[in-house]
């Protein structure tokens, strides 16, 4: 589609010279972005050509730029798809050593950071108590002056520069710059970083983050190391784990030790629910038992930590037997570092170093990271008024520091505060001068994930707003200073080019953005004397605060995709909940959704209760990441901030802030609210939706043959792919395959359309439930988020506010992660029992060969395409919603409001979020049904490309968005009719089954059963001791 523009805007911009994309900026919508279904228009539209057409771009055809993801410290490689000068999709870079083409939800959502409607459009300057827009010249002049006299007066030596920790050259570059102005080195702050593990690793192996080879281990024991929830390097860890588990034979068993089952815990075969604060002794005892350093008898330790001795003994036995093994220590308890060191000792004792722990393949991700103590120390200096000028970039300490640190008050005492943040976050709100940074997709940079490998970051598009890369601003400021001017190239691009042998090298390296080379060496990590007192405070319960797997420390909270993405464990979106064990809840007569007040010595927090069977009865958990005071329309006032509960308490050995093990008391508060959850019933009721077998059964074949859920049903023989009868007309009729007049539905028809059957295989042995596929789907298919307060029905007081639509089950995720607990009782009456299996299953449209939704549609809006797709024609839909009634999988979603229509309160893509909309996919208007289409736009694009190159579509030439993103490689898409495609082979797997086979829907989505690895000697954790 040509870029179209509505008229009135032209009049505005026609005045001064503008480039083509600036038109789009003003108008916001171009190409298919305006396509609300059936919204016909007679407005005269404009065709805006280029002034001078760029050589490489073809209108209507995507251009791809390789770059580096900056959403966390890991430094994954990404490919940014741009169309007509806008980034529309971010995908993993297959050529990248870290993430091998996969990408997590947060990486996917970086686009909504780029196009966030609440970004600063210009530099801002404080006037009174508000920030007002100013020009870049003014802003830079102001800052330059400040720097100059700070340098003169010597005040500079007390300046503080807080930078969001990142790897690569920038930290060193920044320190040089600071030094040039006589300022001390910056603080690389990251609230999420596993500081304690890093410290222990430095001590044990001399590197901050050795390569963990999860695949080589026979058993993995995680001491609250949530390597599937964002701890460490999420994507590579998940890839390795999934690959290992997919081996089935000889796949590592996963044992999880910790008070709360995180996503990692739920993926574990055994859960040892050790009481907070006692894990250290337990580890010591285990160390002693396996012959490493450390003391303490197993039984006693088990007693103290409230787990059964048999379980621990069994674990020890297993560790001795199964070598190599891998033990990981995470968590943020008062003595997490001690724990981590002990674990490293055990690893050494078991000879895992070199086998599963490879210091040689160390990651640079956490080099040069400052301890949380250092930041708290800085805060104290500020409070004492000893800091004349402070800078903050990217980080939001006001929100992510413990409430006890009183960072906001301290920061407010600094006379001159400069922010380089791009968003109006809680910290930036307090600043006097804001020089908004470019988004990472708009700026140059580099990362060195593995020593010797440089991962480049290049701008994929011109800045959306009038922002400037901080590095360039720094250079500009330096140029103003005579002593420093000489040291710098024209801009930061030059600095990067220097790392790869000049401009030529840079140009050569950019196609993959991965090259040999190294970033500037990371500066030495900053630290300060930690303050203890972790387990202080009163209360009968342990508080367990954890960084949200979806929102991280809160930096994801301004991205609606992430707010709407249900937490993989609790399935809660748009809301902060207090996680209680049903037993505890019953004791305090608290029901699901009742408001609960958690009180610590520092502060208190009131939120609805969520009854979670995966947490110790003596522990209460709250996720961090929500409860912003500012940070834009999506984050402001959504949920509450768990950090408020935490006092100043750090791990004495590493200076990591203490998140877990703090004492707290809980009480029923008045009021209740409906949980913003996508969870209906978390039990399968024996319906065989997410099936699993034990390794034993898998070997012997018992229990693997099809489970007849309903007795006395028609043939439920398993017929994957084309061997299942496929509809031979638009109504999804099975009919007589030999019947004439089938037109394109005839495999022998000249069009050959019917020769294909698009299908998907989902390997539940790989799927961890991380939900990256969900966000990928939102990004690819223009799926609206519906949870913002103004998007909901406004007529019921009880169901308005954040997530009002989600409360009514109106979320639009075309693919959802269902999380079932294999435990026969409903949540409310569950005794504590650590032994339950969790099944996660991605549920999307099953593209039935014999679809119940097709015959009932009165207008053929949904029908069966010859290539086996269950097509949804949005513009034909009148919205009877009959198809949804027919669908047993409940994977059809209705546009209750005009989410896709601009100028509506419920519009899901406020300017400029709509820049991200995929031009190849129709944006649905109100009143129509939508659903997963196997990314039909990608199928058509591949067919067009093949035709253009005068060839057939090659096997596995392309894949769908969810499969492309999946960091577990659990999804495989392809043509089941052609055995050259991987999927056609996989459907033959002996673990294969269809969901609700007995309904004879002959789905095109084939699931492979999960395989559980129970302990040889069952580790039965007795409920009694747990309390």
């Amino acid at each position: 589609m040509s870029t179209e523009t509505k008229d009135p805007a032209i009049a505005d911009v026609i005045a001064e010279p503008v480039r083509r994309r600036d038109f789009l900026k003003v108008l916001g919508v171009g190409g298919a972005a305006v396509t609300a279904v059936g919204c016909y228009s007679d407005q005269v539209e404009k065709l805006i050509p280029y002034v001078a057409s760029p050589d490489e771009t073809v209108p209507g055809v995507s251009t791809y730029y390789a770059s580096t993801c900056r959403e966390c410290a890991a430094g994954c490689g990404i490919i940014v798809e741009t169309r007509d000068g806008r980034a529309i999709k971010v995908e993993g870079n297959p050529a990248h050593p870290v993430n091998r083409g996969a990408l997590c939800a947060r990486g996917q959502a970086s686009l909504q950071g780029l196009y966030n409607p609440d970004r600063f459009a210009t530099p801002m300057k404080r006037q009174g108590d508000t920030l007002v827009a100013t020009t870049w010249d003014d802003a830079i002049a102001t800052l330059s002056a400040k720097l100059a006299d700070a340098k003169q007066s010597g005040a500079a030596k007390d300046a503080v520069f807080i930078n969001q920790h990142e790897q690569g050259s920038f930290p060193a570059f920044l320190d040089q710059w600071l030094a040039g102005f006589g300022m001390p080195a910056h603080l690389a702050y990251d609230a999420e970083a596993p500081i304690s593990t890093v410290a222990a690793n430095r001590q044990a192996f001399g590197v901050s983050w050795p390569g963990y080879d999860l695949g080589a281990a026979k058993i993995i024991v995680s001491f609250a190391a949530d390597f599937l929830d964002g701890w460490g390097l999420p994507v590579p860890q998940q890839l390795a784990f999934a690959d290992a588990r997919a081996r089935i034979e000889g796949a590592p068993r996963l044992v999880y030790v910790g008070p709360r089952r995180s996503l990692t815990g739920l993926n574990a075969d055994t859960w040892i629910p050790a009481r907070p604060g006692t894990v250290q002794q337990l580890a010591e005892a285990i160390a002693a038992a396996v012959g490493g350093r450390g003391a303490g008898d197993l039984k006693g330790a088990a007693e103290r930590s409230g787990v059964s001795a048999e379980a621990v003994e069994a674990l020890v036995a297993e560790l001795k037997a199964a070598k190599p093994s891998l033990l990981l220590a995470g968590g943020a308890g008062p003595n997490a570092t001690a724990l981590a060191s002990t674990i490293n000792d055990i690893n050494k004792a078991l000879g895992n170093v070199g086998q599963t722990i490879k210091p040689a393949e160390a990651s640079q991700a956490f080099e040069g990271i400052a301890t949380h103590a250092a930041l708290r120390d800085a805060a104290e200096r500020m409070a004492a008024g000893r800091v004349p000028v402070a800078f903050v970039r990217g980080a939001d300490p006001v929100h992510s520091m413990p409430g006890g640190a009183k960072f906001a008050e301290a920061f407010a005492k600094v006379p001159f505060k400069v922010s380089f943040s791009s968003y109006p976050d809680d910290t930036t709100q307090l600043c006097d001068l804001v020089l908004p940074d470019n988004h990472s997709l708009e700026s140059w940079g580099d990362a060195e994930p593995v020593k010797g490998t440089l991962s480049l970051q290049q701008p994929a598009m011109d800045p959306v707003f009038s922002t400037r890369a901080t590095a360039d601003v720094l250079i500009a400021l330096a140029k103003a200073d005579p002593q420093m001017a000489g040291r710098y190239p024209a801009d930061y691009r030059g600095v990067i080019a220097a790392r790869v042998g000049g401009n030529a090298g840079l140009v050569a390296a950019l196609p993959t953005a991965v090259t040999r080379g190294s970033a500037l060496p990371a500066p030495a990590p900053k630290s300060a004397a930690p303050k203890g007192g972790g387990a202080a405070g009163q209360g009968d319960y342990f508080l367990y605060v954890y960084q949200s797997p979806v929102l991280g420390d809160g930096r994801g909270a301004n991205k609606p995709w992430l707010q709407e993405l249900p937490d993989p464990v609790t399935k809660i979106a748009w809301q902060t909940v207090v996680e209680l064990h049903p037993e505890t809840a019953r004791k305090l007569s608290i029901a699901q959704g009742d408001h609960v007040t958690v009180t610590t010595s520092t502060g208190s927090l009131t939120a609805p209760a969520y009854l979670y069977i995966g947490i110790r009865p003596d522990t209460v958990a709250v996720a961090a990441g929500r409860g912003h005071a500012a940070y834009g329309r999506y984050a402001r006032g959504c949920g509450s901030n768990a950090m408020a509960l935490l006092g100043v308490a750090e791990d004495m050995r590493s200076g990591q802030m203490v998140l877990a093990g703090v004492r707290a008391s809980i009480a029923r508060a008045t009021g209740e609210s409906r949980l913003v959850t996508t969870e209906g019933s978390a039990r399968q009721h024996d319906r065989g939706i997410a099936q699993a077998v034990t390794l034993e059964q898998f070997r012997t074949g018992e229990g693997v043959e099809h489970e007849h859920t309903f007795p006395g049903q028609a043939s439920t023989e398993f017929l994957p792919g084309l061997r299942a009868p496929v509809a031979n007309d638009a109504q999804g009729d099975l009919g007589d395959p030999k019947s004439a007049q089938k037109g394109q539905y005839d495999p022998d028809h000249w069009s050959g359309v019917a020769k294909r059957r698009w299908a998907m295989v989902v390997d539940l042995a790989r799927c961890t439930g991380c939900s990256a596929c969900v966000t990928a789907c939102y990004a690819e298919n223009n799926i609206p988020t519906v949870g913002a307060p103004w998007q909901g029905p406004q007529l019921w007081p009880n169901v308005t506010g954040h997530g009002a639509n989600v409360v009514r089950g109106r979320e639009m995720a075309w693919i959802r992660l269902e999380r079932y607990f294999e435990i026969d009782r409903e949540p409310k009456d569950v005794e504590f029992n650590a032994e339950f299996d969790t099944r996660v299953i991605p549920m999307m449209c099953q593209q039935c060969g014999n679809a119940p939704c097709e015959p009932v549609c009165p207008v053929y809006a949904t029908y069966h395409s010859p290539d086996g797709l269950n097509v949804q024609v949005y513009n034909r839909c009148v919205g009877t919603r009959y198809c949804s009634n027919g669908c047993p999988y409940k994977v059809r979603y209705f546009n209750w409001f005009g989410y896709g229509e601009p100028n509506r309160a419920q519009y899901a893509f406020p300017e400029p979020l709509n820049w991200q909309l995929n031009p190849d996919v129709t944006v649905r208007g109100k009143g129509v049904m939508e659903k997963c289409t196997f990314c039909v736009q990608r199928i058509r694009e591949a067919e067009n490309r093949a035709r253009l190159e005068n060839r057939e579509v090659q096997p596995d030439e392309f894949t769908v968005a969810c499969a492309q993103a999946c960091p577990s490689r659990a999804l495989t898409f392809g043509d089941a009719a052609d055995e050259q495609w991987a999927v056609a082979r996989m459907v033959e797997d002996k673990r294969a089954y269809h969901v609700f086979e007995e309904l004879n829907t002959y789905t095109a989505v084939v699931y492979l059963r999960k395989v559980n690895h129970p302990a040889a000697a069952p580790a039965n954790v007795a409920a009694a001791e747990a309390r």
Partner: protein
Amino acid sequence: MKRPSRWVFVPAAAALTLAASIITASARAPQGNAPAPAQETLTQKANREAAGKAPRGPFAYSGASGYTNYLGGGVGRSPVQPIKFPHPVHVNTLKLNCVYCHFSAFKSPDPGLPAVSTCIGCHQNPTILPASPDLAKLKDYAAKGQPIPWVRVHKVPEYVHFPHMRHVNAGVTCQSCHGQVNNMPQVFQYASLNMGWCVSCHVKGYSPAEGLRSAGYTPDSAALAAPRKRATYDCSNCHY
């Protein structure tokens, strides 16, 4: 006894009159030419004039074409362009190929529009019609570094995905859908662009001979002998 039957005719007549008036009302096409506002930008002018070109229907079809509430899906609609670009001169006289300017028609769903720089490529030569006011406009745009806000003529609704390259590479002449633009002093919408129009060709198949004729050529024997090119007509080819 009195025969009340004649009363039957009174309301019948009334009904007839009503019906007649409705029909005439709907047939009458209001002129879309609103009075010109005080200061009117170039494009506002173009729109105002364009709006009046085709008769406005009494009600809107959905999806007939981009300009759906013109009867006949906007056929004959011919908006005034910001610059009076003469296709005939460039195509017939100077023998420019369509894809010289519409450069991506054979490799992209989007046919592409010439960048101002493309025009200037030739028109920087001052000897070309030095007096022409439209060329002056063109140079003005180029000088100011502004793109030319052409008024769109042919448009399918946004929920239709039309890959130009598939059609062009299949040998469909541009004129089959766009008409003989090479003979249009001011381009107008040639075909209804509604779904039936698309589907009929996809089902019947495209005849090279007809294509050539519509382009104004006389088909050679090969073209005449060539079979109709059929295309798939599955909904999800275009609607997704």
